[in-house]
């Protein structure tokens, strides 16, 4: 589905990604691990062009993602952010229906109906007309996830979705992601939740200093890391 070829990203002189090659198949759940500053978030953000790649090629279902088609591509590739990024001046309902209505994917009544179903599913029906400022972190993130789902994307990118949450909310958000995974959603996720990574991933990708240095099935990755760098990392975090 996603094919990344020799992706490089530099911020001025700072080389953050130094040539990433990567393939993502439908139904995969890839967890990206790595130390902070390794470039894992940047890698994720290059895929839907939140960051403009310095060089390299990223394709979605065989079509190269460019500035021209990025709008359409982003409807297929949803994203969930660390800081939720609910739109502050819009209510929960308005957050949910904004994109599908403006992009004419659904008319307003249909979008509202779908939004209500999803809100009911995450037990936040009573927050329909609330503004984001009145929600807790966990509630915000769950709304952000269903907001991404409103466009029925083919892939969901999660950029450290639980890093800004208190321990109690983390569980709620992770179970929602788990549920999406069980329904066959194709997922890429950057996270520091090792247990969740182990449980949910079909593949682990380990990035260090802007390069993928190891990848594999979680069972092998965690039990028998091949490189000393990954061994060292796992010793510290597990």
């Amino acid at each position: 589905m996603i094919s990344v070829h020799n992706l490089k990203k530099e911020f001025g002189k700072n080389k953050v990604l130094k040539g990433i090659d990567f393939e993502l198949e439908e139904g995969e759940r890839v967890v990206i691990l790595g130390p902070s500053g390794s470039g894992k978030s940047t890698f994720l953000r290059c895929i839907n062009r939140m960051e403009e790649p310095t060089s390299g090629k990223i394709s979605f279902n065989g079509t190269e993602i460019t500035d021209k088609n990025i709008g359409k591509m982003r409807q297929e590739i949803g994203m969930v952010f660390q800081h939720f990024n609910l739109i502050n001046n819009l209510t929960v309902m308005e957050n949910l229906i904004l994109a599908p209505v403006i992009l004419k994917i659904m008319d307003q009544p249909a979008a509202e109906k779908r939004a209500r179903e999803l809100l009911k599913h995450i037990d936040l029906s009573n927050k329909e007309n609330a503004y984001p400022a009145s929600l807790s972190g966990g509630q915000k993130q769950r709304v952000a996830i269903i907001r991404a789902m409103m466009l029925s994307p083919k892939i969901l990118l999660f950029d450290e979705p639980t890093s800004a949450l208190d321990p109690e909310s983390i569980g709620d958000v992770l179970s929602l992601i788990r549920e999406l995974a069980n329904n066959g959603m194709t997922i890429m996720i950057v996270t520091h939740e090792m247990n969740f990574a182990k449980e949910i991933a079909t593949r682990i990708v380990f990035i260090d200093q802007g390069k993928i240095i190891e990848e594999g099935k979680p069972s092998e990755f965690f039990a028998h890391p091949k490189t000393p760098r990954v061994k060292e990392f796992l010793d510290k975090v597990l």
Partner: protein
Amino acid sequence: MNDFFQKLGELFTTPAYVESLWHGFLLTMQISFFAIIIGLIIGTIVALIDTAKPNKWLIVPKFISRVYTTVIRGTPMALQLFIMFFAIFAIRGFPQIITAILAFGLNSGAYTAEVIRSGIQSVDKGQTEAGLALGLSQYTIFKRIVAPQAIKNIIPALGNEIITVIKETAIVSMVGMYDLNQAAKDIGSGQNMSSYLVPMFVAALFYLAVVYFITFIIKRIEKGLRKSDLRS
């Protein structure tokens, strides 16, 4: 003290004085109103140019807007007024009020631009990213997400700028225009009341009343815009 109230009575019972004050007040209001409108228009355009993503078409406009704000903010308003009156519009018969409106409008534009620019830039980048990630266009993101949030940041500072313009117009008396400030000075002069305190006190009350009214309006608008911040 008795003298003060006596003079106050004299001022308000002499039709010529009342008329002078009223005319002065109207001129002050006219200059302020149109200058603020011009300032808003220029300020919005300059702020949009300043905050737009750089591209080759914007190199010259960005440069001009930077020079404009730097020069206006770096020189005294009184000097700008003199330049407009005695150099640029030193044309016999050219309406003074237009020259004054342009001078204050150009001045206010630079400050308004800064107010709007910082209001736009203070909107969290994550808000724009959320819009982008949902496939929305830059235009839609600005209209539906950034601008409404920026306005909330802009309104209070804009209120300050409006008040500043109204008070600053008092310097048109330096180029011989008959505004509220000049009216007070005229009424207090030797051939009229021969006392400056009372007319200037009254002029001060006029300014205060207007500023108070504007502050009140701005507060009301702010309150209306804050509804999304409430944790209900």
